[in-house]
């Protein structure tokens, strides 16, 4: 048999082969163009069961896999609640004791073998089940406090579970009523106008009961949610890979509250407005605990952005407050964020030397606060990456008063500190340069700090140095993190360092740190003042209003007067971005931003190759 090939046939063959090649290479090409974002977490994650974890990095992943009923508008500042899985923000009923959640139809959980190939819709029962999980003692939920002494009938169920060893998920509870397939009514024991913020917390999300029951031995490693991403790969404490959830309905970034004068908002609007999010196909996250490799991995183009630039590298990144020329040349941009948090030093109010409410003890604490050189703390230890706190309430939080000025109480003033000490009998009687207590007994104070943090040691040294200048001897003691927690909880300290990050953006979350009944919980200063507690109780019954803000102001004044703590700073973090990361803005409450980001893959490829 002869096989002849003329020119036309040859051309057809070539065209055919080319078409086949193009066709075959299409999926490869599209796979190659997947938008991938790589970055690092500062600390290793624990897992992804929303009710079982509280570390911010685990929660950061959870907020992308699951969805809370409410969330925050991405661009609005101050922060603003918006509905996420519910149709509208529930209106507080019965003086803030009843909330009705109407879930949107057509929200589905990500595909999982547990659903046997069926699409599984999110219903009100899922949220009801999830809230119950917070109170199941077997879960030892770190966020149990959200629903403790809060929802009618739920405490009784938890009590019963402690006795029987089994939590009842099926007995109806008065405070959690599923009115229909998509409606859940939550009844509270007492008014709480901040309850809506609870419904926006990344842990307060709907989980599917069948998924929890199927993966009961490892719910941390099998998150099944309705959010924009799915857990694709997880090498514990080493690598987390998220991929777009193909069943996700998509969301669009609202531009309603964008600030036209804010360049970040303008960029975000330009990059993302009108687009169905998320845009990034795959997110690779690497927990790197050490600051140098985390920083170098970014500078070396191994990562696309760097959140919370390590303070020890801040002079290299922002010499004299300006972006370093080497970074500017690479079109790196820096997002500066005042986080909703504050640092403080505790005085143990139960301590016989330092604590108490008598004028001499108050004078001693206030003198120590005045002796502390906060300017040095900010300039040297914090490398000018902090602003002085005027109250425990950070900027951006509901109830923050920008006019509230406490410099009279807090600013470094050695003369006033010495005068206060002299006036109340804290004088140097034996001429050794160290003041004694008013009763003549020697006075040596101790300051405990976390041994695992370099800046903590420096802060302790600054305290010792500051107090030496007014004639008070202070010993500093480094203790391990776990011991520090215990000592602060049970009041086994005189002075200790501490910090608080907002759980929700209301001043109440910060002011509860000094509420009397919270002693041995979050009130580590063990501050018990009836006037303060009354004001706190009153604030709970009030919605956000000028009246409530006035109550908060009075509480802040009491704190400054009695000085159960030395207010420290609100830290400023710098986030670095390469130019191919589009639409970046850091939300003060939400932990991660990648579901609101885009990546210019061509620019990324060109730079990294």
């Amino acid at each position: 048999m002869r096989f002849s090939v003329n020119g036309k046939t040859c051309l057809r063959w070539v065209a055919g082969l080319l078409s086949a090649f193009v066709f075959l290479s299409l999926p490869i090409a599209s796979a190659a163009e997947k938008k991938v974002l790589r970055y690092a977490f500062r600390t290793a994650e624990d897992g992804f069961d929303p009710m079982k974890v509280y570390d911010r990095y685990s929660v950061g992943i959870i907020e992308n896999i699951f969805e809370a009923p409410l969330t925050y508008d991405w661009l609005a500042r101050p922060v603003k609640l918006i509905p996420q899985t519910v149709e509208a923000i529930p209106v507080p009923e019965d003086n803030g004791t009843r909330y009705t959640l109407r879930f949107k139809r057509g929200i589905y959980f990500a595909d999982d073998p547990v659903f046997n190939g069926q699409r599984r819709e999110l219903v009100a029962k899922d949220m009801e089940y999830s809230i119950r999980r917070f109170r199941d003692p077997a879960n030892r939920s770190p966020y149990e406090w959200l629903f403790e002494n809060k929802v009618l009938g739920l405490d009784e169920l938890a009590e019963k579970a402690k006795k029987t060893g089994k939590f009842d998920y099926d007995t109806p509870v008065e405070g959690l009523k599923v009115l229909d397939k998509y409606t859940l009514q939550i009844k509270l024991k007492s008014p709480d106008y901040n309850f809506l913020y609870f419904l926006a917390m990344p842990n307060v999300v709907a989980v599917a009961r069948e998924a929890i029951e199927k993966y009961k031995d490892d719910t941390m490693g099998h998150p099944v949610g309705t959010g924009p991403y799915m857990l694709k790969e997880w090498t514990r404490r080493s690598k987390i890979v998220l991929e777009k959830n193909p069943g996700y309905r998509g969301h669009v970034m609202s531009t309603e509250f964008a600030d036209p004068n804010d360049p970040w908002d303008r960029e975000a609007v330009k990059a993302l407005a009108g687009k169905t999010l998320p845009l990034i196909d795959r997110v690779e996250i690497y927990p790197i605990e050490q600051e140098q490799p985390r920083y170098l991995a970014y500078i070396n183009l191994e990562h696309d952005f760097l959140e919370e630039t390590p303070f020890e590298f801040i002079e290299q990144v922002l010499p004299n407050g300006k972006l370093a020329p080497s970074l500017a040349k690479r079109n790196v941009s820096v997002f500066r964020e005042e986080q909703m948090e504050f640092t403080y030093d505790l005085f143990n109010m139960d301590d016989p030397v330092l604590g108490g409410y008598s004028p001499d003890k108050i004078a001693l604490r206030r003198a120590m606060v005045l002796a502390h050189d906060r300017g040095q703390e900010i300039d040297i230890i914090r490398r000018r990456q902090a602003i002085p706190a005027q109250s425990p309430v950070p900027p951006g939080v509901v109830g923050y008063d920008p006019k509230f000025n406490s410099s009279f109480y807090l600013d470094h003033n050695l003369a006033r500190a010495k005068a206060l000490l002299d006036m109340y009998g804290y004088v140097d009687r034996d001429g050794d340069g160290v003041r004694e207590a008013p009763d003549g007994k020697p006075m040596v104070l101790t300051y405990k700090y976390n041994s695992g943090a370099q800046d903590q040691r420096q802060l302790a040294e600054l305290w010792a140095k500051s107090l030496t200048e007014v004639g008070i001897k202070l010993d500093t003691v480094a203790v391990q993190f776990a011991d520090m927690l215990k000592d602060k909880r049970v009041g086994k300290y005189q002075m200790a360092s501490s910090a608080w990050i907002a759980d929700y953006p209301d001043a109440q979350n910060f002011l509860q740190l000094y509420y009397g009944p919270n002693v041995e919980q979050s009130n580590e200063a063990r501050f018990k003042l009836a006037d303060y507690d009354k004001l706190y109780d009153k604030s709970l019954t009030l919605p956000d209003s000028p009246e409530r803000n006035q109550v908060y102001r009075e509480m802040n004044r009491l704190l400054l007067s009695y000085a159960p703590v030395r207010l420290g700073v609100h830290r400023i973090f710098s986030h670095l971005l390469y130019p191919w990361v589009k639409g970046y803005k850091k939300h003060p409450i939400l932990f991660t931003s990648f579901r609101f980001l885009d990546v210019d893959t061509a620019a990324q490829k060109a730079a990294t190759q």
Partner: protein
Amino acid sequence: MLAYIVRRLWQMFPTLAGVVLLIFFLFNAVGGDPALVLAGKITNKEQIENIRKQLGVDQPYHVQLGYFAFEIATGFTCTYKSFTESKSPAPDAKGPAADAKAPEKKADNSTCQAVRSWATNEEVPKILTSRIGPTLTVMVPVLILETILGVILAIGVAYVRGTLTDRMIMMICTFAMSISFLVYIIVAQYYFGFKWGMFPVQGWTDSFWKNFTYYAPLPIMLAVFVGLAPALRLYRSFFLDEINHDYVRTARAKGLGEKTVMMKHVLRNAMIPILTNVGIALPGIFVGSFLLETFFSIPGLGREILVAVNRSDFPVIKAATVYLAMITMIINLAVDVAYKAVDPRVTFK
């Protein structure tokens, strides 16, 4: 020899019991309250108590010790509730009751499960097995290179003992040993990894070959460099000890060349203390270097233990410690047996 090995294996049990007791009392005496670490930011006394109850740390020490022994023996843990009260000692009981001889209880194995991390709920045996690979990828080449280079350089230095070269090398070794490992890591990562781009700054993948050829070389190089100075000094002293013995003089008197004397006679005899030293270092390769692993993002055991310590994750810490103790004992036995291969004069009694 078999009788010797069997006897040594038997001796491991009381040693292990001692290690277990030591770990148990150390953690209870100096360890923080794990319930507080796990509890979160806002918790009350009752919740803390609930967590302590679930972890079993509210139990009397002897019962906790029983749990611990049971976990080591079986790799399983049983919650307090899974032990049903029994008036008479159960002959088949293998749980804490049997070990602690405290209130007699019987293990209900149906509710027992593999020991898990308190922080992540991951099975502890799985943690150990999954983290050992990256650790060994780095540490095995380190030990091999360090030993081979140490022996070669030491024999060379011993050969030129007393010369300027010998003195210079010893001085460099002393200088190198006086600098912290952390400084080497920070400087090398910055210059070799970032500035000169000779190695990746950090990272790890699922591919052994990529890890071995791309991510591991810098950490290996660093560990070898840092370990070489003390090894070289030590091995040199072993060789010098042997060089001064009568048999070496006799060999020389017989007219053997210096090279033959060193390689055939001195080396062989110096291998016994060298082997002992390698034996001592060997268990260390199974836990890795937490500094290397944290700085180079190697998901190994050292890093895992460090995270566990920071979070008071006792099941992981205890398992790793017991595992290291067992490995140390087994390696010691293997080294003792290896003496025979190196020196036929060694006899087992």
